[in-house]
């Protein structure tokens, strides 16, 4: 039975976090069950304020073999990093 339950990836936004973060996965037969299972597996210690689940099969990912062509070219573009600016005091979450 367990074999047949699809895998869902779980994203949780913590109380102080701004974005949902991937925390792991659960098996579930449907979206509602996936949410409940994610709640029961990943928020036992008061971690969460919001949960997203998405079927693992619906995630489109980059291929490991494309790493070089996708990511290496940005390595030497130092001018893309905003290290030349002063961040005014009091600005959070930049």
């Amino acid at each position, binding site marked *: *039975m*367990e074999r047949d*339950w699809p895998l869902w990836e779980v994203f949780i936004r913590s109380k102080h976090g701004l974005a949902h973060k991937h925390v792991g996965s*659960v*098996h*579930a*037969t*449907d979206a*509602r*069950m996936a949410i*409940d*299972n994610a709640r*029961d*597996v990943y928020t*036992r210690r008061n971690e969460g304020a919001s949960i997203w689940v998405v079927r693992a099969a619906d995630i489109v990912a980059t291929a490991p073999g494309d790493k070089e062509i996708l990511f290496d070219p940005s390595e030497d573009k130092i001018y893309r990093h905003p290290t030349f600016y002063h961040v005014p005091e009091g600005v959070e979450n930049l």
Partner: protein
Amino acid sequence: MTINKQQYRYLLRLGDNALVLGQRLCEWIGHAPVLEEELATANVALDLIGQATAWLELAAARRGDGVDADRLAFHRDVMDFQNVLLVEQPNGDYAHTIARQFFFDAFHYPLLEQLACSQDEQVAGIAAKAVKEARYHLRRSGEWVIRLGDGTEESHQRMQQAVDALWMYTGEMLAADELDQAMLAQGLGADLAQAAKAWQGYVDEVLAEATLTRPSQKWMQQGGKQGRHSEHLGYLLAEMQFLPRAYPDARW
């Protein structure tokens, strides 16, 4: 019965329902069908045992003779337990566990909603915390009833069997006896007629969506609230109480 004695017995009912069902659910640990269900079941069990602790502590305080919650949980005999018969029924297959849970949750949630407005501040405080947990329990068990009832041919059949088998244990918790009436009159307890109405609503809605047939059986088993239990409770208590009784005051 003095007022405090009445309150003590009423609080025992609340505590014992949660304690016995929590203990039953713990029996799934290490045996649940999938990991996610095991954790979810353990979460519900822990919610209930936490509630039982709060109710039994309050019961002990109202009894007022120095007894504590552990003493009440681990050193009372079967006939002193005041839980409804439903919660002591064995786990059976997963459909039985789910049916038992749903029938109880559909009662527990509206009950706690009312108790959260109790004129007794301590009762209201415990219920206000527990009602959030119970609301999630009800949602979760209801979804499982629907999932299994409206699932495969086999899951439908097993879910229907479980609903039919446990139906006769559902009347007791919804019917007020003298103690329930006295506590309602005092402003401490809940109006079971109102809880029963909510229960019927939840059950009818979920059974219909689950494509399950509502049993037509009218005769209801009763006695748990007065301490007359099915044989199953004795075995459950033997396992739960063995250690504190064999090694009094054991600590870890």
